């Protein structure tokens, strides 16, 4: 149940995507997210879909596993679509009492749904194929110019990777505590909102206690190994671009050009959809 949340997790597999440089994957993901918000027509949608599907295929992460990540955001997704559907002004298509659906609303609901879905798929694909360590290294390297204006880049990257690393640990912990309380007759599934909220206390208190304990332990362990922040720290495996990474940058560039071109052309042509 609780294990279904896969966002931010690494999925070990042997694929081209896994081997790419994390900097490339980070900037690629950012570009992909931008491209999602560029398209608002049918052809743009096709280009983005083709790109996403082929990247997913290349990653060798099972589709079922990737899709599980969507479960966690299904509520947000439906909410967004709902509001877009009913609250957009424009040409009325259907009227249901005081609610009305407009053509513009329908489009924006569909596009919003697709965008959010792609957003989650794209970014979770990055974490599926990149270990937290690589992610930290990549982020730190990419952000390193900001160090000149006194941004604590190393610390930010470290915090992010620890947060990612803690997701599965806390998930496992939640699972364990839930089971332990269920063994004492706790019931997390039935009852009204108030009863359910109350039933979470036996879960949340031990979870927080354990999160603090773990954070404390980790801090101690890091200090015991002389961790003192980013100053003067060197890498055992410094990041280096390979030929395949340049090739991937080229593909990204082509992809972005296509999406931008489509959105420019389509906006000039009269929309036939």
């Amino acid at each position, binding site marked *: 149940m609780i294990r279904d949340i896969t966002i931010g997790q690494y*999925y070990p*597999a042997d694929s081209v995507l896994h081997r790419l440089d994390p900097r490339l994957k980070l900037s690629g993901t950012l570009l992909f997210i931008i491209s999602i918000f560029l398209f608002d027509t049918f052809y743009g949608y096709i280009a983005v879909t083709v790109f996403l599907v082929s990247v997913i295929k290349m990653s060798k992460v099972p589709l079922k*596993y990737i899709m599980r990540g969507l479960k966690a955001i299904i509520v947000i997704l439906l909410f967004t679509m709902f509001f877009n559907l009913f609250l957009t002004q424009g040409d009325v298509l259907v009227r249901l009492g005081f609610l009305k659906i407009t053509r513009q609303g329908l489009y924006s609901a569909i596009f919003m749904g697709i965008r959010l879905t792609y957003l989650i798929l794209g970014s979770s694909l990055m974490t599926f194929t990149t270990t937290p360590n690589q992610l930290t290294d990549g982020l730190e390297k990419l952000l390193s110019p900001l160090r000149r204006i006194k941004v604590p880049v190393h610390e930010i990257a470290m915090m992010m990777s620890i947060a990612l690393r803690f997701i599965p640990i806390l998930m496992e912990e939640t699972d364990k505590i839930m*089971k332990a*309380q269920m063994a004492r*007759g706790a019931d997390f599934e039935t009852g009204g909102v108030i009863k359910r909220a109350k039933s979470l206390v036996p879960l949340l208190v*031990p979870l927080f206690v354990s999160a603090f304990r773990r954070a404390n332990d980790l801090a101690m362990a890091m200090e015991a190994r002389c961790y003192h922040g980013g100053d003067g720290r060197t890498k055992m495996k410094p990041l280096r671009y390979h030929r395949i990474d340049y090739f991937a940058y080229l593909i990204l560039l082509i992809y972005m050009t296509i999406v931008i071109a489509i959105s420019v052309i389509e906006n000039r042509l009269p929309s036939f959809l």
Partner: protein
Amino acid sequence: MQIIFDNVHYVYSSGTSFEKHALKGINLKINKGEFIGLIGHTGSGKSTLIQHMNGLIKATSGKIYFNGEDIYDKNFDMRTLRSKVGLVFQYPEHQLFETTVYKDVSFGPKNLGLDKLEVDLRTYEALKMVGIGDDLIDASPFELSGGQKRRVAIAGILAMQPEVLILDEPTAGLDPRGRDEILDQIAKLHKEKNITVILVTHSMEDVAKYVDRILVMNNGNLVMDEEKVKIFSRYKELEKMHLAAPQVTYVVNALKEKGIPVSTDVTTVDEAKNEILKVFKDKIQKI
């Protein structure tokens, strides 16, 4: 038969690269009133196995019967099962959450829907059994020492008065005195109320002292299921599975190899002492 496992398989994270076949076709019968030891090396599937017994995890395939009823039947009431099969997890102190020891222990009985008086009664009784005195009853569970927390957590299950009590390494990390106190108390409970006890442990000495029958897990298989004495006589096989017999088993076997006619059926230090003394007495009498 109280609990029956019929070809139970369990797979964690099935369909992903994290897939782990943790139980591989377990067949098992547990009778009412037995005191069973469950041993096996780290990761052999002990915790997975016992979580099936009160329905916390559902077998990937296979059937489990409790008092003759299929627990996966849709008319079967899981809540009753959980009230009858008490499971004390590994490191149970991590599940404490209430503001006072009393409230935490009474969480279980309250969930059973008992009236206030009965809840009170059971809570005090359980706390007494694990040796938590009146002075600590209103303390916060988070202020207690590790060993005291453990006792409170165990009391939380005892207060539900289960028919089957399963303990997953209840004494890991306790001092020898505390360990004996808790296990003695459980043995007493077993004797007086005839409850079924299943003890998961890495300590062969504990197994030797308390249980009658031993189950040995290895890589998700139930490889041995026999009386204690018989299992320990197969100590060479146990060693292959990164386990061992109690120290005295080795002592009496070594004596026997040297030609001293001791029985190797002893498992505890006391029994071994008596056995050796007996052999000496026989010898003296012959002279």
